[in-house]
């Protein structure tokens, strides 16, 4: 076997090694300086992080910067992730969302964004097995969203995908602030119930 073949086999073994690992195990390995573990976490979740950041910012370059920031932060501070408090995916997305909102609020002009993209199907190069699962998830999410009242859905979407504070949402919709924060909370609770009843695990570790 040539050295190139041996290297290729070794890299393949590494990918296989981590492809079977849980997200928690990946973070343990990241904490132990395993770049290939970070690569696997990136493979699993960078698309979602990028998609969320792009949806908020409508700017590919800035969304890419957020992806970079989020995964570098995972590399530098892996201990910030606590698997007892949620999934790695939600942890990374919460980081990305917070950072994107910071950018939006720091640059008011960015609030004039395009219409938010609808949920998309998997893109090229996406892991096939994951794509199937994600498309199923997308279907469940759409069904769950349909269970919300129009007012709840609008409040949740403006807050989460619009990057607006509940006060800003209230102002935009001409509603009381207390009404909006209640709608956001009740909307999220309904979504949890719907997603749980459809078999989508909430709070469990994702691969």
């Amino acid at each position, binding site marked *: 076997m040539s050295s190139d073949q041996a290297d290729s086999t070794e890299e393949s073994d590494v990918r296989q*090694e981590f492809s079977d*690992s849980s997200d928690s195990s990946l973070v*343990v*390995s990241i*904490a*132990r*300086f395993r*770049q290939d573990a970070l*690569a696997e976490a*990136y493979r699993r979740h*960078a*698309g*979602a992080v*990028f*998609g*969320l950041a*792009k*949806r908020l910012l409508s700017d590919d370059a800035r969304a890419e910067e957020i*992806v*970079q920031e989020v995964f*570098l932060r995972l590399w*530098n*501070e892996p*201990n910030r*992730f*606590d698997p007892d*408090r*949620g*999934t790695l995916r*939600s942890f990374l*997305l919460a980081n990305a*969302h*917070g950072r994107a*909102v910071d950018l939006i609020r720091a640059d008011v002009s960015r609030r004039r964004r395009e219409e938010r*993209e609808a*949920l998309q*199907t*998997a*893109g*090229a190069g*996406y892991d096939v097995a994951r794509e199937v699962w*994600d498309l199923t998830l*997308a279907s469940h*999410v759409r069904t769950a*969203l349909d269970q919300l009242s129009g007012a709840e859905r609008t409040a*949740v979407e403006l*807050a*989460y995908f619009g*990057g*607006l*504070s*509940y006060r800003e*949402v209230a102002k935009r919709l001409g509603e009381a602030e*207390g009404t909006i*924060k209640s709608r956001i*909370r009740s909307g*999220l609770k309904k979504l*949890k119930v719907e*997603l749980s009843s459809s078999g989508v695990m909430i*709070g469990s570790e994702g691969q």
Partner: protein
Amino acid sequence: MSDSTDDTMGSDDVYELDELLGAYALDAVDDFDRDRVEDYLRINPRAAAEVQEHREVASMLAFTGMSAPEGVWSRIMDQIDAEAPDPGPELAKIFAFPPAPSSGSVTATIAVPQRTDRTQQRAPRSSWLLGAAAAIVLVVAGVAVVGARSSTVDDPIDVAYATAASAPDSLSAELVSESSSFRAAGVVDAGGQGFMDGADLPRLDADMTYQLWGVLSSTGDVVSIGILGDEPGLETFTVDGDVSALAITIERAPGVVSDGNPVGAYVGDLV
């Protein structure tokens, strides 16, 4: 409401803060409200759990099925490599052990993380890792790490070590780095009393530690035996007789748990 929070906050305050939890989870609060909610979360685990549930739901809304952006990964790697400090002391991945005089010997490995430091201000490892590590240690061995010791002829630990090392039914192992620059010696006597002399191992940064592992002869599993600290001396440990190899790794203090992919390449063959 039965929350203990009620003891320190008015029910109106609690209600108002509870109503804010959804908005907070979506980053839809201003700085003033964020501070209030975060103070509240510190004293109310139920509210903290609710926020996490909201974030899990939000993570599902965020699904777009998009691919990871091209080029970003290489930029991440460039930055990681650029920030990487000098590697720590070189230690071998494979260690060879001369056979003990009469009863064979143990081979052991030392696997080294890719780098021995990442930043100068690393926070402590999450407690969930430590709890699991402790559990594993209890299963495998009663560990009594005594810390660095100065060598004196009459020190009972030194005497016991010398006795064990010369006993015909003891197993011994010499852990030698690939470049032969660093060595550590391990001995396990017939009763399962172990000694690890790591006095010649180079001192690590304060946020790193050496960790001792055992390879179970029955299953080949690698399990944590104990933490040797950043500057080992003569350390003692006990094993239950099933360990066929020893390994030392460098880990971020205060050590790690074996997680199914414990320390990289560990092969402990009897020779």
